[in-house]
């Protein structure tokens, strides 16, 4: 997949994961995303971090240092209100794109022409 598209989709995946799972650190996020994608996504886990920085710069997530389950210091990320709103917007946009492409790509049913 071209890098730009992957960026956008990865961003949305991160936001949604944070919405359902609550605050997570980088490792937890990576694990969950791979889980949900069920093998469809071939991701270098490190690429998560530039994406997280980008989302933070946009103001959709915020970060703070905390303690992980294994008692290690880790940086936790969570959604902001703006981020929450952004999910709704992005999801709607995806729906539109999907239904639009669907019209073009749908094979005509027998009898329709």
């Amino acid at each position, binding site marked *: 997949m071209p890098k730009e598209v992957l960026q956008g989709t990865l961003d949305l995946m991160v936001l949604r994961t944070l919405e359902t799972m609550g605050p997570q650190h*980088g490792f937890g996020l990576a694990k969950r995303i791979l889980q949900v994608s069920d093998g469809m996504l071939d991701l270098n886990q*490190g690429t998560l*971090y*530039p994406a997280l920085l980008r989302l933070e710069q946009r103001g959709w997530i915020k970060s703070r240092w905390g303690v992980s389950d*294994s008692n*290690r210091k*880790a*940086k936790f990320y969570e959604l902001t209100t703006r981020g929450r709103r952004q999910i709704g917007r992005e999801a709607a946009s995806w729906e539109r794109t999907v239904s639009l492409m669907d019209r073009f790509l749908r094979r005509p049913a027998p009898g329709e022409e």
Partner: protein
Amino acid sequence: MMLGRLRSLLRRRRLDAELAEELRHHLDALEAEHRARGLSGEEARRAAKLDLGGIGTVTEAYRDQHGIPVLETLWRTVRFSLRSLRRTPGVAAAVIVTLAVGIGANAAIFAVVNGVLLKPLPFPEAGSLIAVNHGMTGTSDQLPSAPYLYFTYREESRTLAGVGLWRTFPANVTGLDRPEQVRALLVTGDLLPLLGIQPTLGRTFTAAEDAPNGPLAVILTHGYWQRRFGGDASVIGRTLAIDGQPFAVIGVMPQRFRFLDQPVDIIQTFQFDRSQVTLGRYVFPSIARLKPGATIEAASADIARMVPLAIERFPPPPGYTRERFLKRAVTPRLSPLKDALVGDVGGTLWVVMGALGLLLLIACANVANLLLVRAEGRQQEIAVRAALGASRRRIAGELLVESTLLGIIGGGVGLLLAHQGLQAVIRFGPSNLPRLGEITIDPVVLLFTFGLSLVAGLLFGLLPVVKYANPRIARALGSGGRTVSGSRERHRARSLLVTFQIATALVLLVCSGLMIRTFQALSRVDSGFSQPDHVQMARISVPFADVPDPERVTRVQQAIVDRLAAIPGVTSAAFADLQPLGPANAASDTVLFVDGANYAPGQARPLRRFEFISPGLFRTLGTRLVAGRDFTWVDLYDKRPVAIVSENLAREEWETPAAALGKRVRASPDDPWREIVGVVADTHDSGMHLPPAPIAYFPSLMARFWSSPIMSFRSSTFLIRSPRAGTEAFIREVHSAVWEVNANLPLAEVRTLGDAYERSLSRTSFTLVILAIAGTMGLMLGAIGIYGVIAYVVSQRTTEIGVRLALGAQASQVRRLFVRDGLVLAAAGAAAGIAGALLLTRLMSSLLFGVSRLDPLTFALTTLLLMAVATLAAYVPARRATRNDPIDALRYG
């Protein structure tokens, strides 16, 4: 988003450290997971790394999120350019110096233009302040306001938020360590609040302090307070003896307070008695503030409406009828206060700014030439980079950044020069430049300089970019950069630049030539005074408290004159109420009534200048007596009804000076007629560039003048003719002589008539100096340009020269070839320059006097000068070329 990136840029190091920490944590966690699934320590580690992906890539991708790429590339390019400039310090220095001079000069003159013409006056909402003047039907002259008008406007106006009168007088302050003559600003009580400036210490005047016989109060200006009281805050409440009367100090004005251009030390109130106000007395300048939303046109209509009301409301002065005032009612002449203050100096300033702008263009052309040469030297480097894949845009971008950088550095140095230059302008510039105190290098000037540096940098940077950033140059690698088409193109570019320089230099030279002729013409005008450098002047004011009786005032003044005349070396001494060539003399011009002159109803009498003088004035000034005689002291003390007129006045009324003798004039219909006993030569009292003012001279002590039973002039300018005028020793002797009569009399405005004369010419001389400097520098730069081009051509054709010489050509013949090339360039430039000058001199015609803007002599001489310099500039490299041994030229050329 941008903001986020910017923030990351600033916290870069911390973010990098945090990322490293996070990645470590992630890696450890992955490793732990793999180990839990059964992999060995080594394998678990490897698997974890695979899952995470290349740490280097991640870190770089992370870093890419920091910062703003454009800025980073720019910063890198700037560092690169600085390095490459350091490698050719000679060219860089030459460029920076040239630019510093060009940009600095423009920054300085812009600071002047900004301070004088563009900035609003230093009062709150200065845009709604207007100067209230009047015209009178039938004359084109302008009159200030009058008390009867002031009271009416204040009471009846619908468009004016406030109105006030002011006037400046000299005043004597005594009671401190030594008596001092100061500049007093008298105002109506509402003027300071109208302007919107509050005293920093104390308070402004109350209504009681502006009422007749009210308490006497004075406000000090900051400068005076610092000078005389050392900034002591306890000055409030102290008493100051001013003109013999005690005034309570009630306030001090802020430091930034400037009252138009008047040098003011103290501020007092007029204390007009409204019940005594009559019609007439148009001697008070007036300022008003428009109500929000009101326009000047509306205010004009308002005033036109109020004038008849005013005439009805107040009584006419004795000897006049109300009908006379109604018939010759005044009309409003309102103007924004700034315009009234700035006057016509704008013409001069814009011309100077234009000239310096042209000079900058010449400088830029020079710099472009220098950079072209430098770019030539770097052709190989650029070609290599282009071959290695640097895009045309990138190379062009780098060259532009380089030239812009040069521009900014040059501009920075220029700003330093401008600061120095401004000090010089303020000291030696036209001394009647308005708003002199407001000329500073403020943020507007800084912005202008920065913008100018950028534009200049882009301008001269474009030429090398256009010529050299082209990847076609990759071909140049092969032929060593000496392709014929390439060098011909370069030569054309440089020749065009030089032609442009020559043309612009000629325009500047023509303009300075015209100013020189103007100055000469002005200097040749017979001022009416002879040897003004030998006339010492000093203003002395006899205070009312010391000498209340008007006639005694004259006796004191005569005593002073006698003492002054007794100083060794003094040939003559006298006094007059107006200082000759004084800048404000025209403000008091008034109507003279002539016996036998008939004026049709509605036709107004012309305004004449009145001067009140002592005997001996004309001998002191060196003004020729054309007919009749001078006043004598008997005329004064017997209060004889006599008068003297200037020659132009005599001719205007009675055809010849001789015919004027015996005729009768008076200043008011209620006065007795005065007989003209003398006619004197004209004097250019308003300046050399204006026709001589028609003047009526009256004795300084008179009875029944302007309906006054007895009148004398306490504040007069004393004039002393001596070859030693102006020297320290002489001035001290003058002081001693005056103090022998009265030790409490301070002298003010001590200068020679020569100083006043030079001051009246200063606007012309200032412009002349600037244009001459600009013209000379332009000529030098143009000469350097021609030299550069010819030297280059010679260097390219050394082989050819060698061949010619070897084949027997005379050295002089070869030289003539190159000199001719140079002359062709110069001729082309001169032709363009003449055309340009023919068009552009129109812009300075308001500054010219006694010379036409198309003056053939100026054009011819400057062109000749230019061609002579060009010939020399072309000759030098040509000569050097032909001195070389032709064998060397053939071998190494």
